[in-house]
């Protein structure tokens, strides 16, 4: 229910009642989005959209920084990482664990 997905804003328009609207591209699907809560959003920005409303701009620098932090994380633990259990889910009729 709290699902919100990032889309790329490419057009800003006002509707006939003066509500700030825009159109955003979600991996090829284009949707109308209400931009009243993100007055700072401009075409080219990524916005986080929930039930047709942009709730936030996606901060690309922060995204980049978080990701680099993950990639730079110590390699140490990797040796203990579990094997992915490819036998899951069990085939029909197979005894489950």
């Amino acid at each position, binding site marked *: *229910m709290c699902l919100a997905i990032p889309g790329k804003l490419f057009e800003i328009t006002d509707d006939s009642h003066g509500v700030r609207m825009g159109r955003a591209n979600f991996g090829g699907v284009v949707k109308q989005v209400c931009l009243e809560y993100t007055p700072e959003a401009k075409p080219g920005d990524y916005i986080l959209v929930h039930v047709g409303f942009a709730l936030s701009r996606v901060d690309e620098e922060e995204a980049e920084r978080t990701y680099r932090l993950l990639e730079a994380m110590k390699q140490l633990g990797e040796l203990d990482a579990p094997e992915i259990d490819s036998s899951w889910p069990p085939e029909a009729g197979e005894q489950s664990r």
Partner: protein
Amino acid sequence: MKFLDEYRNEALALKITGEIRRIVTRPWVLMEVCGGQTHSIVKYGIDHLLPPEIDLVHGPGCPVCVTSLEMIDKAHAIARRPDVIFCSFGDMLRVPGSQGDLLALKSRGADVRVVYSPIDCLKIARANPAKNVVFFAIGFETTAPANAMAAWQARKQGVKNFSLLVSHVLVPPSIASILQSPLNRVQGFIGPGHVCTVMGYREYEPLAARFRVPIVITGFEPLDILQGTLMAVRQLEAGTHLVENQYPRVVQRDGNRVAQELVNKVFEVCDRKWRGVGSIPKSGYKLRYEFKEHDAERLFDVKEIDTKEPPICISGLILRGVKKPKDCPAFGTLCTSENPLGATMVSGEGACAAYYAYGRHLELARQQQPQEITS
């Protein structure tokens, strides 16, 4: 898709679980608050990737699940009226009230429509001036700005035949309620990223301090959840209890001020009954008096309906993180997604429904099934 695909990277996921394994020294119980996170955890098997010391329990954060049976019955009473077009998010349609669901009402001729956004209801209302268009406004803080805007624009544009049946719920009071329970096992929280996109996380700071639990505001993709888990485990191992933000690409400490302002103009805090849990003080939103012309509860005289849940259902304990779906004797047998008995099975984001959809505990539950179950 950008900002989604890179957060599903398997090699990085294994790196984070490796780090959790390396630092963990004892069992810890963490709760993810949001139903969307529960869904990701079960779908991607995150709970299986984590070391056995980490027990993820699933919180009350599915608004469809926790909408009280009384409220659903009210919705049905309104939707049955011939002068009403009843609009709802799709996931509410299949939730059974005491007499069937909205989909069944639709099949019997009621005008029930699924909308993508509450703002779409205004268009429907303008196109149908002889009808009353009612929107079932449910949700957590994430959805409140959208629903508030629908009420605000209806008043501003003079759309008199549009109203909202409001059943909004709030996260922080439910966290307090879980932590205050004598049955509580939760030691740290994976916080709700999208709720905090709107509200910020200042209000979580007194909770973390008072109950001495770490709260890590976390996103919804597998890497987000794993990193949020790692941050919470680090805190637990170090004995700290701070609010941290794993999701800074969209969450700021103050949240979205513009959205909060409109939400506060339209809604006020009220006591709210949660399905499976009961009434929690100051845990919901209702429309302010100024919006009474758009308040379906005032417009339609629907009497209080008292309904009882099936006694076998343990959803109240699951919502508080005391039990898991596999602990329920009815799970996967008497209670399924097709015939849900209680809160946690009624919507796809409920813990039981997520376990059921991905089938991982179904066989186990059947084997553990006691010989005789009569309801």
